[in-house]
């Protein structure tokens, strides 16, 4: 599935490329089990070798052309020599004619000189001439010898003043020989010229062949270089593209995809590592998902259990209160004489029943309150309230206890304190707890309530001259079920929940609670709440 999405990101040109034979080649190169380094080196080496081969071929062509040019030069030279031979022949004929005309043999020596030149040139020609021309040169040489014999005859005839004989020899013997030599030389020249023409054609042909060859090599080299570059680079780009698609899937949080590349090089190794990473991520993701689901269901079960607990507590609250209502109710109506005059000796036990019943009620209330706070089910009923009223309620309800214990009990509220916002009844409960504790733990002296407004903060304070709290216990007294000493519980009573509940209620108002105390001297408990609590913070 992930593979498809990765392919979708590849541009259509690449898809077309991968479908073509070029794509097969790219994959084949990718499949080669060699490192990227070696592959690149091999590609560059192939291209370099091709260029070297091209250079060698060009050099060979140049050498061949040079050889043929030399041959052409030689042929050219031979033609020159042939012309010289022709010239020497003409000179011989000229000098022979001159000898006849002057009727002197002096010119004959000049003929001999021309003959020597003729022979020298012919000698050179014979050395340079190709084999097929040797016979022709041999024939020329034979004819020349004949001509020289005739020249000797003519010279002899002239010396002997046999002019007519010399003329006849010239006409009938020498001229035909010279004509023959001339014809032979001409055919030699013609042969050389033909050879030259062939050489020229051959040079032209070899030049054009070497041009074609060089061009062919150049085109092939460029094409091969392009092909190698293309194939090699795409054999690297393809896995990189795959990896990019794969990694973006991972980045989007889709794990477990697989990257498939044909490469058996570093890219192949990389792909393998990425696949392992993907598997590991997938595994971790699954584990995390399972854990999250487990946590979720656990959470649901806990929420269910918490609801069940809260319902149980609500029911229990009512169930406990119903018999307590009967106990307290019957005691009161009995005490009030509804069943007739109460005998004096029964009055005290009736009051004791009432006192203990009320104590039991307070304990039940505390336990239920704390349970609700723990379950996060306690809500503050935030309304306007009067600070004066709270202090008055607390003072009034505890005044009798203070009088009973012989304690001075005062309450001071500055007259300028404005109407406050908060849960007045809960704050009353808090102040009742603190003041109740103070009265409980003070045997002699006084308990004073007062309120101060500092800026937007109200501080309720209860100061007593009671037993005080040891320093090392101060931090613990706000914890649940905590009284400094278990003997205190027996002597003074109480659940140890009051302070804990008070602390939670104050914190729900966005305030804080604190105490300053000196052992044996007394304590000051206080809590500070905003003048305007904006709502519940439980």
């Amino acid at each position: 599935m992930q593979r498809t999405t990765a392919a979708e990101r590849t541009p259509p040109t690449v898809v077309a490329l991968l479908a073509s034979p070029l794509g097969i080649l790219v994959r084949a190169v990718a499949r080669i089990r060699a490192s990227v380094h070696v592959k690149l080196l091999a590609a560059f080496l192939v291209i370099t070798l091709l260029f070297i081969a091209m250079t060698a071929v060009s050099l060979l062509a140049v050498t061949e052309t040079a050889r043929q040019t030399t041959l052409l030069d030689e042929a050219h030279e031979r033609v020159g020599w042939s012309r010289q031979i022709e010239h020497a022949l003409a000179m011989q004929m000229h000098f022979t004619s001159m000898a006849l005309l002057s009727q002197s043999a002096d010119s004959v020596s000049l003929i001999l000189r021309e003959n020597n030149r003729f022979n020298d040139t012919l000698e050179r020609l014979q050395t340079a001439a190709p084999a097929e021309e040797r016979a022709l040169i041999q024939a020329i040489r034979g004819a020349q010898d004949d001509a020289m014999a005739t020249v000797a005859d003519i010279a002899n005839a002239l010396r002997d003043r046999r002019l007519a004989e010399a003329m006849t020899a010239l006409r009938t013997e020498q001229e035909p020989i010279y004509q023959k030599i001339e014809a032979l030389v001409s055919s030699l020249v013609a042969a050389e010229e033909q050879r030259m023409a062939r050489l020229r054609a051959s040079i032209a042909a070899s030049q054009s062949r070497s041009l074609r060859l060089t061009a062919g090599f150049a085109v092939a080299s460029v094409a091969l270089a392009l092909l190698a570059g293309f194939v090699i680079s795409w054999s690297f780009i393809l896995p990189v593209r795959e990896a990019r698609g794969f990694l973006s899937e991972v980045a989007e949080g889709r794990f477990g995809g697989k990257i498939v590349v044909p490469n058996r090089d570093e890219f192949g190794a990389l792909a393998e590592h990425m696949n392992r990473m993907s598997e590991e991520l997938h595994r971790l993701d699954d584990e995390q998902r399972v854990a999250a689901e487990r946590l979720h269901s656990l959470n649901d079960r806990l929420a269910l259990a918490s609801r069940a607990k809260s319902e149980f507590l609500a029911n229990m609250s009512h169930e406990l209160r119903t018999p307590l209502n009967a106990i307290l109710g019957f005691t009161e109506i009995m005490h009030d004489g509804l069943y007739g005059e109460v005998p004096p000796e029964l009055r005290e036990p009736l009051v004791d029943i009432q006192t203990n019943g009320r104590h039991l009620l307070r304990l039940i209330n505390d336990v239920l309150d704390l349970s609700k706070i723990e379950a996060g089910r306690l809500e503050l009923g935030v309304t306007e309230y009067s600070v004066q009223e709270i202090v008055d309620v607390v003072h009034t309800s505890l005044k009798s206890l203070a009088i009973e214990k012989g304690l001075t009990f005062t309450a001071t509220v500055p007259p300028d304190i404005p109407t406050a916002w908060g849960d007045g009844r809960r704050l009353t409960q808090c102040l009742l707890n603190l003041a109740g504790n103070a009265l409980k733990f003070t045997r002699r002296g006084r308990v004073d309530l007062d309120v101060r407004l500092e800026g937007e903060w109200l501080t309720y304070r209860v100061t007593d001259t009671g037993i005080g709290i040891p320093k090392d216990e101060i931090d613990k007294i706000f914890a649940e079920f905590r009284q400094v000493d278990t003997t205190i519980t027996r002597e003074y009573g109480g659940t140890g929940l009051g302070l804990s509940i008070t602390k939670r209620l104050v914190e729900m108002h966005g305030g804080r609670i604190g105490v300053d105390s000196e052992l044996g001297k007394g304590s000051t408990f206080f809590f500070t709440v905003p003048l305007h609590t904006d709502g519940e913070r439980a």
Partner: protein
Amino acid sequence: MKDRTVLHIEDNEYNRKIVRQLLSRTSFKLIEAADGEEGVAVAQRELPDLILMDVQLPKLSGLDATRQLRADPRTAKIPLVVVTSFALSGDDRRAMDAGASAYLAKPYSPRDLMALIHKFLPDN
């Protein structure tokens, strides 16, 4: 003048007995019901002058019974005191929302209950 009737809806016999004892010395006529459904039926039949309704009742809760009585035009105006479980639990607010005229937290003092009854049914 006809004796005024107080309907007490409460499932606990002892608590019914306390009210019975309290009202025995007065001119109020007491009728009782032990669950929410019966309470609504008796109220609609007898049209009492005051209803004392416990909040937690079998079959039909005190709050639901209160809502039913308030929805019925014959009983909508009858003073109705809901006896809540615990003043700070939020029951008091729910009771007033359901249409109670007043609430009394349990356990209540019989003196407070009598004071409340006299408040709604003053002596001439």
